[in-house]
């Protein structure tokens, strides 16, 4: 036991399982020290009165919520990936997909405008390959906007199910972290988008 470790009985005291009087005399001083530690715990309340106003201001800017709108209106999916968990080019990834439904009165084979977003600050180029472009890794480049490494592409796709992946720097195929994925049968994961 190191010099800093409390005796197991003193830990029971700290846990509230026993009292100071239950300790043998040789542990009383250590018990006193432990109780002084607990006495310094700050249990005073913290009041954040400004939070309510700020929260309500923030959500006031959100689009209206209804079952119909949840199906038809823009939808956000967010996932943040810790940079140190991935290879450098993909180190920081967050995905945001916004589904922008076209007019409800669209043609029978309805089209849906979809914006794909990948945050990859260290990437030099990002493109989109999927069932909608015959998996051509060069057909649909994403455009980098600003210094934050946000790459976007807006496509109009027919309603239905599509599979896709991001292609980073022409070599790395990355599923969208914000969308469900399926095995492509060759050891890779494809993202699935249902419109």
């Amino acid at each position, binding site marked *: 036991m*190191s010099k*800093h*470790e*409390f005796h197991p009985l003193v*830990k029971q005291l*700290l*846990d509230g399982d026993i009292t100071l009087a239950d300790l043998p005399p040789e542990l009383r001083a250590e018990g006193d*020290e*432990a109780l*002084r*530690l*607990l*006495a*310094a*715990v*700050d*249990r*005073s*309340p*913290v*009041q*954040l009165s*400004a*939070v*309510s106003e*700020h*929260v*309500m201001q*923030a*959500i*006031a800017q*959100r689009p*209206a*919520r*209804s079952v119909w709108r*949840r199906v038809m209106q823009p939808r*956000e999916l967010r996932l*943040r990936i*810790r940079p140190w968990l991935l290879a450098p080019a993909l180190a920081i990834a967050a995905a945001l997909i916004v589904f922008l439904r076209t007019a409800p009165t669209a043609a029978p084979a309805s089209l849906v405008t979809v914006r794909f977003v990948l945050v990859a600050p260290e990437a030099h180029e990002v493109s989109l390959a999927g069932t909608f472009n015959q998996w051509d890794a060069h057909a649909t480049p994403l455009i980098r906007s600003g210094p934050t490494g946000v790459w976007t592409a807006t496509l109009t796709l027919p309603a239905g199910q599509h599979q896709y992946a991001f292609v980073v720097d022409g070599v790395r195929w990355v599923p969208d972290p914000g969308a469900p994925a399926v095995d492509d049968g060759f050891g890779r994961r494809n993202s699935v988008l249902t419109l």
Partner: protein
Amino acid sequence: MRRETQVTDGDIVRAVLAGDRERYAQLVERYRDRYARYAARMLGSVDAAEDAVQDAFVRAFDQLAQCKDPNKFVGWFFLILRNRCFAERRRSRAEASLEAADSVAAADRTDGGAETAERRRALQLALLALTPDQREVFVLKHVEGLSYGEIAERLSTSIPSLKMRMHRAYDKLREELREHT
């Protein structure tokens, strides 16, 4: 006698999901300060706690449809706030500072005098030296007053695992307090 007119969290969540977003303010008012203290002790700063609680409420609103049991909104919200606090600590781990602990101690230096404030400040600094897992179990038990059983239920973990974390926290706090006081 208590009047049975308390609106449940589930009632409010369902109303908000049905489009009455103003009702969300009731949930914010209900839990804002209750979780402010948890966030302040986890992050070592009232300002950081304010940001975290605010973000967590906005995120909870955005994801409200994913709250599977509206009557258990608060447990679900707590996990969002917890993730936010853990992420914040990872981000600013290198910035854990005397200033942060000062801000917590100073905010509450109203009734205990300088000595109490100094002891609180020393302990808050020591808490920042714990791992987030250790700090969390200490805060939930000794600041929020939850039992091991309640913490285990909230965090979906076992009591022995929590006790192991806590006992390591005790030793680390003792080491920190001895070295820095």
